[in-house]
């Protein structure tokens, strides 16, 4: 908790220097991580622009091999293109670093495969704008509507839920969801320190343990249209072991890591 206070103190002068009062329009950046999403990315950006014209967006191209960068360039999308493939963790972290450098108040992750509906962004951001949370996760499992993922994956997600409850004494129903919004403090935190490989559940734990307030809101997700998920059936065992271990390790790390 002292950490949170320290963060508030640290950013007090920022709020003054930009002259932003409480309740004024906050700068929102939508981070769209994309790896080989050439077929989906156009639709995602079009939907996002029509749903939320006020928000800036940036596509994080993780050195795709299918010409995603070319598609972005030809369509005049805003994008950052990594020179080497870093995986989803390093890619998303680049987005947070970008958000930090450009002074955004709120950053939202939106998958580049069209799973997440941009029109639901608002419900995530509102909670952060009101200062009710540092991180808001869009969860499939609160209202149980829309695409619910396969049985095995739900079992895995349920397992993570139990593990998080054990480690953080808090229930996060959909820790694997990549649909999440972060406040300025958390952008700063993630820019310095973000989980790698399969980062979503681990990032949630590290945020909670660093004293940030994490909540969930119900969202409806769609099944991906084309392309493949980063987690194939063969890799899923490795995924479970790696993420569980990473969560346990982040739990034994010292609480304040700055």
């Amino acid at each position, binding site marked *: 908790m002292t950490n949170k206070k320290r963060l508030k103190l640290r950013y007090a002068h920022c709020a003054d220097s930009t002259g932003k009062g409480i309740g004024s329009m906050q700068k929102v950046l939508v981070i769209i991580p994309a790896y080989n999403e050439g077929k989906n990315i156009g639709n995602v950006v079009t939907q996002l622009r029509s749903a939320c014209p006020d928000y800036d967006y940036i596509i994080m191209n993780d050195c795709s091999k299918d010409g995603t960068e070319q598609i972005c360039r030809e369509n005049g999308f805003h994008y*950052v293109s990594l020179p080497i493939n870093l995986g989803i963790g390093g890619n998303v972290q680049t987005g947070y670093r970008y958000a930090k450098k450009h002074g955004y108040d709120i950053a939202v992750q939106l998958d580049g495969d069209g799973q997440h509906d941009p029109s639901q962004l608002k419900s995530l951001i509102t909670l952060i704008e009101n200062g009710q949370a540092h991180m808001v996760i869009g969860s499939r499992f609160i209202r149980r509507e829309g695409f619910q993922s396969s049985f095995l994956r739900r079992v895995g997600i349920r397992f993570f839920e139990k593990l998080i409850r054990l480690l953080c004494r808090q229930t996060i129903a959909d820790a694997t969801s990549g649909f999440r919004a972060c406040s300025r403090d958390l952008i700063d935190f993630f820019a310095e320190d973000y989980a790698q490989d399969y980062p979503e559940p681990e990032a949630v734990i590290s945020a909670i343990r660093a004293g940030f307030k994490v909540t969930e809101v119900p969202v409806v997700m769609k099944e991906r249209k084309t392309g493949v998920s980063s987690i194939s059936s063969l890799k899923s065992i490795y995924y479970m072991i790696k993420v569980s271990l990473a969560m346990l390790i982040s739990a034994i790390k010292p609480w304040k890591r700055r």
Partner: protein
Amino acid sequence: MMGLLCGIIVYYLRKERLELKYTLLWLLALLIVLIVVIFPQLINTVAALVGVYNPVNLVFYVQGVFVVIILLSMTAIVSGLNRRIRRLAQEVAILEERLRQAEGLGLKASASRGVQEQTVPLNSAAGKAAQ
């Protein structure tokens, strides 16, 4: 055998293909071997001291421990390098985007003013983007 290893390390160090920082562990291992070669009785004494029945087993054991330590330190070094490379790649990507934006602004500015020379508006645009 050890002379050969020693020669290789010195050769690499001279050619600057190894950094001294990463060869310290190897040099330490060589130093121990050197001591043992000069005073072979040392092995027997130490083996008796720690209760190892056959002194040769102690040599193998110490060897194994050293290999594990060196491998572990290598993994730590690789992890550190990995983190640095990631940081660099992220910075490069962000700077590339900024450069692209600045160039776009610079081109537009020079086109609207009818200026052929692009360096001045480019710089001013970059300055604006920096704020």
